[in-house]
Each structure stands twice: as C-alpha cells, then as structure tokens.
C-alpha cells in the first residue's frame, strides 16, 4: 500500500494520479456547465430567429458602454486568475494572495455594474415578469418581453456563477494565507481557475448577444 499523507487521499496511489483525476473531474464538470448554458443559448437562438426586430429594439436599450467596460473587467479578471494559477505552481504565496484579491475585486466590480444595469432596467419598466409593470409598444410586446426575459435569465444565471466563483476565490484566499495552496494542492487553484475562466467565456458570448444585436442609430420597426 502506498504511503498516505495528509494531501493524498486514501483512494490514490500517488500525487500524479490524484492530480490527473482532479483536473479531469473539473473538465467534465465544466462540460456539464456547457450543456446547462447550452439549453439557454438554444432558447436565445430560437427566439432571436423568431423575433429579429424586437431583439434589435431590445438591444438598443442596453448600455453598450457599461457592457464593454464589464467585458473588459471580466477579461482582466481572467488574466489575474491565470497569473494566480501560475503563482501557485511556482509556490509564490504573496503573489498568489495578491492576484486572488485582484480577481475578487474585479469580479465584484462586474457584479456591481451588473446590479446597476438591472436597476436601470427596473426603473425603465423593462422587467416583463414577476408582476412588474412592463412598458413596450403593444405590437412588440411579446418579442420584447421574450428578449428581456432571456436577458435577465441568462445574465442572471451567469451572475450566479460569478457569485459562486467569488465565494470560491475567498476560500482560496483563506487557504493561501494558511499556506495550503502550494505543491500538490496547487491543483485546487488550477481547478478554480478553470471555473473562473469558464464563467468568463460564457460572458464573452452573452455580451454581443444582448448588447450588440443591431447597429446603433439604425431604426428598426
């Protein structure tokens, strides 16, 4: 029987096996996340095909500047995350902690901007559900409602993933302070990084799909 110390779980023979298992598990998990979002994207495609004019109209009520800033924020957080993973593998604890805080900060900024946008939509009566008063021209009502439904749904599920991701990062920071994230345990940082990048990747699609449907200025309908 192999020697087992604290970092090697009982079922494994060596760290290589443990690490391969953990990384594969994370990827397989991400595939399930892919499919989960895939269902939502399918709904998006179907309704965009069905209501092209309303999707263009709805998109014109989005704040492209804020959307772009948020994309920038998220891409930057992916960079800090990638660097954090690197810091963990080279066992640079100070750097790791710094970069994790940076990622948390950027993630929070993203959520803050998102919350502001939600609030704005709420004020402008662009919330078609939960019994809210919904303002839209009658002939575009159904299509616009569908657009906003999808918008809130997809960005909402995405934001939920962000929140989980930030929670994960906080756990990592605590563990990093305790010095537990180097050596064989750096796989934890690596896997959390995969998750964070995945959430970023979803946003990369959400951004053009909701903010950039149609040319600005060009009036439809």
């Amino acid at each position, binding site marked *: 029987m192999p020697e087992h110390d604290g970092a090697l779980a009982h079922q494994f023979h060596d760290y290589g096996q443990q690490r391969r298992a953990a990384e594969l598990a994370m990827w397989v998990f991400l595939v399930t996340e892919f499919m989960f979002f895939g269902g939502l994207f399918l709904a998006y495609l179907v309704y965009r095909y069905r209501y092209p*004019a309303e999707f263009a109209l709805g998109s014109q009520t989005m704040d492209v500047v804020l959307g772009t800033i948020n994309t920038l924020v998220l891409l930057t957080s992916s960079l800090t995350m990638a660097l954090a993973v690197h810091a963990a593998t080279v066992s640079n604890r100070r750097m790791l902690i710094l970069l994790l805080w940076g990622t948390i900060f950027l993630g929070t900024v993203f959520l803050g901007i998102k919350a502001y946008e939600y609030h704005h939509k709420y004020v402008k009566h662009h919330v078609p559900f939960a019994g809210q008063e919904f303002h839209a021209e009658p*002939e575009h*009502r*159904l*299509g616009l409602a569908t657009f906003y439904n999808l918008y809130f749904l997809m960005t909402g599920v995405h934001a939920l993933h962000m929140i989980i991701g930030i929670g994960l990062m906080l756990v990592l920071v605590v563990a990093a302070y305790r010095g537990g994230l180097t050596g064989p345990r750096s796989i934890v940082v690596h896997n959390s990084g995969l998750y964070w990048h995945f959430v970023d990747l979803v946003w990369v699609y959400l951004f053009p799909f909701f903010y950039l449907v149609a040319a600005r200025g060009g009036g439809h309908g």
Partner: protein
Amino acid sequence: MDKSFRLMPEQASSIAPQIDALYYFLILISTVMSVLIAFLIIYFAIKYRRGSAVDRTQGAHHFYLMEIAWIVGPFVVVMVIFFWSARLYFAQARAPAGAMEINCVAKQWMWKFQHPQGNTEINDLHVPLGQPVKIRMISEDVIHSLYIPAFRVKQDVLPGRYTTIWFEATKVGQYHLFCAEYCGAKHSEMRGRVIVLEPSQYEAWLAGREVAQPPEVAGRRLFDQLRCNSCHVGSGMAGRCPPLDNLYGSTVRLQNGQTVLADETYIRESILRPTAKVVAGFQPLMPSYEGQISEEGILQLIAEIKSMSPRASESGADEVKAKEGQP
C-alpha cells in the same frame, strides 16, 4: 360504433390500409427476428447446458464476417422500413388539393368544429364519405391532440399556432375521436364521435341544422366591427394599407426584402402582431389585435379574407405554393 372485440381497429380512411400494410410488414419482421433469436437461445441453452457431452472446441469461425452480416442485414431491413414509412408520412402530412376545410378550436375539455357552411358542432364531427377533409386546428389553452384511430391520423393542436390534419373517409359509420395529448383533469373525457355520412346525407344534415352564419359572413361582420375597412378597403385611409383582394395564396414582398406566402399562419400573425412582417412600401401603422379577438373570430376573419381571393381559396395556399414550385 362497433363494440365487438377486435385485434385491429376498423379501416375507415384512404390512408388506413396503407398504414396497416406497413404495420403488418413490421410485425412480420419482428416475428421473424424474435422467433429466430428465441429459437437460437433455447436451442443453444439446451444443447450446450453445463455437463452435456457435446463438442465445445472453438473452431475458427468467421468472426468478422458474422459481425458484418448482422450489421448490414438489419441496416438494409430498417432502411426499407424507413423509406416506406417516409412516403406515407408525407402523404399523411399533406392534404390533397381541393380538400374541404373545417375549422377546429380545442380547449379544456371540448372540441368545437365549424363547417364551411357555418354549421358548428361540439365534440361530434360530421363528414362526407369519399371527400378529402382538412381540419385547421388551434387551441385556446394547452396542447391537445386530435386523434381518430379508425382513420389512423393524429395531430397535436397547439396554442398560438395552426396545425392541420386531413383524411378521406371510406366507410360510413361512427368512430371514436379522442384527445391524445394529456391536457389536464378531464383529458380522457375530451372525446367525441366522427360520423361519416353519404355525401347526400351530409348535405341533408347540413341543411337540417339551424344554420349559423358561414365563417366568412361572420368574418365580414367582425371585419366591420373592428373597423378594419376604415383602412384596408373603401375610402378613409385607403392606400396606406396593403389591399386584401387576392392576398390569400399570393407571395408577399416584405419591407426587409424577404418574401412570404400569404397563408393562414401569415394572416393570423398579421392580425395579432402586424409589425412582425411589414409589407414592402407600407408603414407599420396597424395596431395589434392581440387578445381582442377569440380564436374562432380569427378563423372567421381568415375565412373572410380568403373569400376575397376566390381562385386561391379553392385549392388552398399550400397547393398554390406547391404549384409555384417554391420549397
């Protein structure tokens, strides 16, 4: 209705014997396959039971050849079935030209039919023998499904969208009509009868009933009530709205450069969501009538608009499309 014990349902439509033929073929294939496998299993199981004195030396059997044989064999069989069934499936889906059109509105838990002459009936459906009948269906609430086993036809009835079903009855009598899509508490009681009559009797039946207005007449009334004519015809704002004469069955050019066939679905959409497909050369001025007209009302309006294009409405928009060779 025939209440005797039987193993096969009655064949009362032109398509029924064709479906049954395929069904019998499938039974044949299945029987041959299952009997073959059952026979082999039982034969081997007895012959090679543990302890029996038989030769068990594993010769060089043609391993790959066998695998290939039982991949290719079933493949050929299923492709035969596929093409046979595909042909019939299209025949089931496409009504022949000149089919008589009946409107149907389904709701929890009843069927409402309206004949071209305006007669309406609930849960019963009278149809003439030997005449293709096409039913245009829509639901007011959940999904239902119109099912007439003796005709071997079934089609889901959707809220918000037309679907059609067609058949040609070949045998006088009464048959079951079911709702086949689960739709709530009284799903199993959403039932009725199809009554197939000789054409002359059908005429008599139509005449003998207190005749309601034919759908296009009722539609005309609605048309006036909703003041559609203030824009679409006559004086007023005429010219600012697309004309409706000979609209049905024609190909409409839209503002965004695409074209659509003006069929029932298009007309329905244009009434409910006028801006969805704006006709080229016109402004999107028309208000939406979403939620203001009942499904029956919409069907009547469509009948009225169809009556303005006498040529196309005889054969139905789909056939016009087919004739023009569009996909």
